[in-house]
């Protein structure tokens, strides 16, 4: 093996009494791509934060290029040639690419020499690694794929030899992701060392040389990628065998329960987000909407659930129209049998500061079952919450616990339990398993299929193509606010990927 670029030896880190990292050993060889996989809360991010100087390890040693180092701030990390590309980009939206790149590395007060130097340096980096991006473009006008390139350029500009990428493909189209991988391979060929944190096992298989698996704060295994399988990695992550594809029978589609006709939605700036979209969802089928985030799916869901104002079109719920003026009462729609699991459970679907039982009635809090006159019927609410905890295997099973203290998967189960247990006729679900770990994904998928088998109409929006393909009976692809295609569940990833990128749409239009 080549010389190690990074060695972590016996790293321990606790937050209060919680041990986020226990006795972690990791060695990443120079000039390789090393993957780190693990469920949410397995300690991946903590470990990388220690390496990047956000946190201090309680004990253990870090060696960079064979020498023991102490990294107490991110400046120390940068000085050692470690760069990080965060999951949520750390860019100033209304600055240009150039301004963002020199941010924090300005050499003089007037920026004149910094800018000149940065311009020539960027030029070199772009040529060397195929990272083309216009240095004078303003960040907010760039697509996410390019914004990510700027993040990578930022790190390289600061002389990074070791690049850490945290969930880099979450926001990218398959084509953009492929491009990113090509860039990473090029960086590797130039001798850079790359650490890739992800929960997408396919990416690990596609691009890494070696892979480490974390589970509950410990490093459970390190494998050479060529010698392992997706199945083995998934098993190592959760500690047991998991189904990667849901078993489901043939759907028996019944009557149309949700019908969307010529729906057009604009955002607050007047930009058309949903453009003349029409489709039906029948009882007993799951319709999946695929698409790269930001192509109108969120606005579509919000309009259907009565939260967002639609410019034109109509939505029929069980044959009756929904008020699309944006003044609809979501409570009334719930009474009419529309349940909605929103995309953003942290700010919309849940109140994180509430106890679990309080969240288990959100939106249904004016239901007579939970009330005694103007007062909340605390006993009934608690009994109901306990019941749902049992049915949905929500852990820890304590209805008095603050919702923020549940893991992502369990938070999602709280929302799903609340919405599914109301026995709705139509269930619309945004990003059913975003930020949810593998074990819970399986559970959630099974539940959604069970809903379908009970004859409910289920509409699922997800940016995870695998999820859409394994759940849906029909797949609609959205691009730039339009539905650009409908496919059956047998559609290949490549086919859907092209639709999602708008390629086929443009060709068809010509």
């Amino acid at each position, binding site marked *: 093996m080549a010389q190690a670029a990074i060695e972590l030896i016996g790293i321990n880190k606790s*937050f*209060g009494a919680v041990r986020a990292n226990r006795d972690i050993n990791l060695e990443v060889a120079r000039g390789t791509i090393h993957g780190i996989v693990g469920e949410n809360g397995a300690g991946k991010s903590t470990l990388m934060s220690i390496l990047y100087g956000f946190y201090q390890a309680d004990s253990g040693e870090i060696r960079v290029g064979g020498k023991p180092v102490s990294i107490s701030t991110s400046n120390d990390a940068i000085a050692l040639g470690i760069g990080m590309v965060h999951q949520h980009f750390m860019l100033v939206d209304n600055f240009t690419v150039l301004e963002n790149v020199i941010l924090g590395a300005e050499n003089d007060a007037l920026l004149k020499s910094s800018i000149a130097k940065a311009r020539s340096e960027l030029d070199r980096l772009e040529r060397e690694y195929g990272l083309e991006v216009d240095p004078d473009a303003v960040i907010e006008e760039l697509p996410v794929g390019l914004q990510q390139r700027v993040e990578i350029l930022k790190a390289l500009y600061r002389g990074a030899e070791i690049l850490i990428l945290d969930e880099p493909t979450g926001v990218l189209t398959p084509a953009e992701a492929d491009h990113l991988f090509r860039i990473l391979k090029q960086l590797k060929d130039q001798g850079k060392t790359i650490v890739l944190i992800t929960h997408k096992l396919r990416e690990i298989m596609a691009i890494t040389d070696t892979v480490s698996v974390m589970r509950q704060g410990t490093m459970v295994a390190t494998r050479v990628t060529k010698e392992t399988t997706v199945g083995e990695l998934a098993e190592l992550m959760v500690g047991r065998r998991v189904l990667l594809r849901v078993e489901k029978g043939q759907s028996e589609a019944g009557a149309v329960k949700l019908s969307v006709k010529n729906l057009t939605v604009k955002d607050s700036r007047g930009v058309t987000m949903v453009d003349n979209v029409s489709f039906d969802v029948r009882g007993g089928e799951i319709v999946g909407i695929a698409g790269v985030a930001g192509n109108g799916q969120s606005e579509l869901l919000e309009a259907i659930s009565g939260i967002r104002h639609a410019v034109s079109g109509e939505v029929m719920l069980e044959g009756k129209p929904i008020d699309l003026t944006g003044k609809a009462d979501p409570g*009334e729609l*719930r009474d009419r049998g529309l349940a909605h699991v929103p995309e953003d459970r942290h700010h919309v*679907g849940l109140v994180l500061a509430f106890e679990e039982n309080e969240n288990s009635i959100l939106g249904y809090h004016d239901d007579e079952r939970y009330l005694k006159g103007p007062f909340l019927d605390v006993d009934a609410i608690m009994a109901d919450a306990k019941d749902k905890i049992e049915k949905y295997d929500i852990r820890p099973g304590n209805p008095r616990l603050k919702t923020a203290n549940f893991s992502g998967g369990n938070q999602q189960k709280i929302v799903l339990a609340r919405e599914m247990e109301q026995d709705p006729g139509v269930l619309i679900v945004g990003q059913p398993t975003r930020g949810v770990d593998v074990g819970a994904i399986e559970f959630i998928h099974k539940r959604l299929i069970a809903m379908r088998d009970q004859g409910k109409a289920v509409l699922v929006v997800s940016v995870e193509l695998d999820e859409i393909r394994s759940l849906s009976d029909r797949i609609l692809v959205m691009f730039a606010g339009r539905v650009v295609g409908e496919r059956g569940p047998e559609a290949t990833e490549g086919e859907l990927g092209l639709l999602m990128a708008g390629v086929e749409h443009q060709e068809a239009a010509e």
Partner: protein
Amino acid sequence: MSTPYAKLPAWADYGLIPLINLSVAFIVAGFVVMLVGENPFRAAVILVEGAFGKGTGIAFTLFYATTFIFTGLSVAVAAHCSLFNIGTEGQAYIGGLGIALVCLSLDSVMPWWVIFPIAIVAAAAFGALWGLIPAYLQAKRGSHIVITTIMFNFIAASVMVYLLVGPLKPAGSQAPQTRNFLAGAELPKLNWIIELFGAKIRSAPLNICFLLALVMAFLIWLLIWRTRLGYEMRTYGHSPKAARYAGISETRIIITAMMISGALAGMMALNPVMGDQHNVAIDFVSGAGYVGIAVALMGRLHPVGIVLAAILFGMLYQGGAELAFEMPAISRDMIVIIQGLVILFAGALEHMFRPYIQALFASVSPKSVGMQAVNGKGA
């Protein structure tokens, strides 16, 4: 793993940490007392004895506390709905106007126990009205409640000055205040309760508004944690998006919360106006609304905490007055410094010692900090 720190048992969260913050505030205040050349220990003794040493002192402390309970609850109710009501001062002032109108017109014909309920309603209604306007502007026009309520404090002050030097002032009087109320508008004192414990009271303004304040504290607890309306207010307070999702009307909840907040502020005026002064004078609120912000923050927006914090501030007011009297080097301004330190450490720097306490608890007893919860084998 969602929270960087493990949680503390409730008694430490609500008891130990405020106590530590308070102690630090008093230690720093002690240094300030030393700087002006007085003995901090003697000052502390005078302060505490002045507030709790004699029956009269206790009665004054509780009288001030009554005022602060109302204003503290007022700020807390709005805060649960994520509205920072700085306008408690003005709402209380206008509440006084409602009381004045009731008392001046009815005090010659009715006994106190008839006037009191009417005055409560009037005080609450006038205060609520003064909260309603900023609430409406926030809900419908997006005018920030902090700005509008501050401006409404000034408007309230101007309106009251106009009324108290004009229409409400008895002819021929030189003082900017209403005429004194007759016996019908004087509330019974509660000093006998303290005298039951054997303390002697010369003359103190503690009156039945204290009991009203305690009842209101209980009702507000009920409102916030046990009613549908309170649930909706808290939902909106934590996440407006979640409230929208849950079908809670933003306009309705903002207006309702601010009206309840204003009503509580208005009711504060009952205590000094009907319980003590028996008239409405210029600037009778004298900053109690602003103290309410500190009381609410220190009481962590919980009625029990607010009652305790109000008593603490009552003590600082009463004990502070004694201190200024006993120690010539310590002026009235010194007391403001001590109060400021309490607000600084108990309010603004509330979480300063928390990480250390948590680390301590975690090392002594991991279970007490919710280890099981965090380590639960979540899917």
